[in-house]
């Protein structure tokens, strides 16, 4: 499903964010990416959805080789993945329904297919009563649920979440995790960068720990150690 081989990322200012990272993610896995701030978590996540290109090495996601992919293929690649951000990144001028529908519209889905599918995923995240609200009229947790609905509406193979609970209180974070685990239970691969120690310890999954740009731990069911 996902394969990173000897990936190195150096920014234009000379800083090396990731050094010689190799890993394989199988379909249907739930993966935490943890590490202190500045360790390189976000760089890894951004490389996975091709916001950043690796300086060297290769990244294969499904049939796409991200290191050599043509710019014109990027939109089509992104349609196979769902992305969830810490700051939600919803379109402020679109309603809840329209935000989720937009992800289907860009793949040129028919109007008659869009409506039932959007209603279905909004029901899945518990927002079927707030279809006509604008993002500014929702709480943080609700906005994140809209973002998750948008990420899964096209039934992607993989959902990539960059600190999805970073801006949310513990109770709301639990709700978001419930949804992500439910999506994973349906067979979607979930890769989640997080700082949330309690969450990782209470809901164990495969854990990748990055420190100083290197992968220092890859453990199934791993948890935050006390000294971290």
């Amino acid at each position, binding site marked *: 499903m996902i394969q990173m081989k000897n990936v190195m990322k150096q920014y234009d200012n000379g800083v090396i964010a990731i050094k010689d990272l190799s890993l394989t993610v199988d379909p249907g896995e739930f993966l935490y990416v943890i590490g202190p701030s500045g360790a390189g978590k976000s760089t890894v996540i951004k490389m996975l*959805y091709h*916001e950043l290109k690796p300086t060297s090495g290769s990244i294969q996601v499904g049939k796409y080789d991200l290191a050599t992919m043509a*710019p*014109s293929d*990027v*939109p*089509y*690649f*992104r*349609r196979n993945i769902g*992305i969830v951000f810490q700051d939600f*990144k*919803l*379109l*402020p*001028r679109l309603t809840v329904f329209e935000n989720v529908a*937009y*992800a289907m*519209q*860009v*793949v*040129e889905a*028919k*109007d008659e297919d869009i409506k039932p599918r959007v209603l279905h995923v909004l029901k899945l995240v518990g927002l079927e009563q707030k279809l006509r609200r604008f993002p500014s009229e929702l709480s943080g947790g609700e906005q994140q649920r809209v973002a998750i609905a*948008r990420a899964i509406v*096209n039934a992607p193979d993989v959902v990539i979440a960059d600190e999805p609970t970073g801006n949310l209180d513990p109770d709301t974070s639990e709700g978001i995790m419930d949804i992500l685990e439910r999506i994973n239970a349906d067979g979607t691969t979930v890769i989640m960068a997080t700082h949330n120690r309690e969450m990782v310890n209470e809901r164990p999954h495969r854990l990748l720990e990055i420190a100083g740009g290197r992968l220092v731990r890859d453990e199934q069911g791993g948890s935050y150690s006390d000294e971290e």
Partner: protein
Amino acid sequence: MKSNVFMRHVRDSLKSLKRNGWMSVAAVSAVTVTLLLVGIFLALLLNVNRVSTQVENDVRVRVYIQKGTTKKQQAALKDQLEGLANVKKVTYRSASQELNSIVGSYGSQWAMFRGDQNPLNNIFLVDTKDAKDTISVAKRADKFKHVSEATYGGTTAKKLFRTVATIQRWGAFFTILLLFVAVFLISNTIRITILSRRDEIKVMRLVGATNAYIRWPFLLEGAWTGLFGSLLPMLIVDFGYGLVARNAHFTEAANGFSLYPNMPFLVWLDLGMALIGIVIGGLGSVVSMRRYLKA
């Protein structure tokens, strides 16, 4: 592109225009002010050009026929004049017709010269194909037999030609300058609205929208901004031009010059303003967002 996708873009662009609220109002207002200036100046410049051309074309060669020339000789002279290069039309006016027009213009005291007292000559009025040919035609006609004198207005006409050329040159310059200002102002306004929405464009790209898909609603929104911005200038210019044309009518009749008639001039002017708005609005959007669409 599928027609349902295009219709979706049209719907979305209108919806977005509405939801952008004051930003849209600001953009439409900027286009309105710019196109109002463009409309007024275009109407003015086009008419100045028209009247100056009419003034220029009013310059004709007057060929004074020597007294005592027989009708047969006059007919031969007319043929000779018509045979000259660049001559469009030769009109005969008798001495009494000339005197009548003087009486009409300067008063009845000139009527005492009617009949045998008439000191004026019979003349031929020669229209040339191009006003600037009057000088050469006059010079050649002056050498013909039975011609007492051939005039074209002398230095006055030369000055007139120079003035008209200057007016037309500056008119063209101002028109081009004005169009540049319009392009700059409208595309700048559109650029500011796009700048405020660059995060939206980023999100659209992250959910897998192609650049073409992102571009369409923005292009259409820019075009709507241009079109809506041109409506008020059209109304004001149409109303204003109608008013000016009506009041100028009497003066025109006396001088023999005329402004462009309302129809179809205003239709073309309105179409021009709408087109400038739509094209600059639409293209301005596409050009402004180009940098945010780079992979």
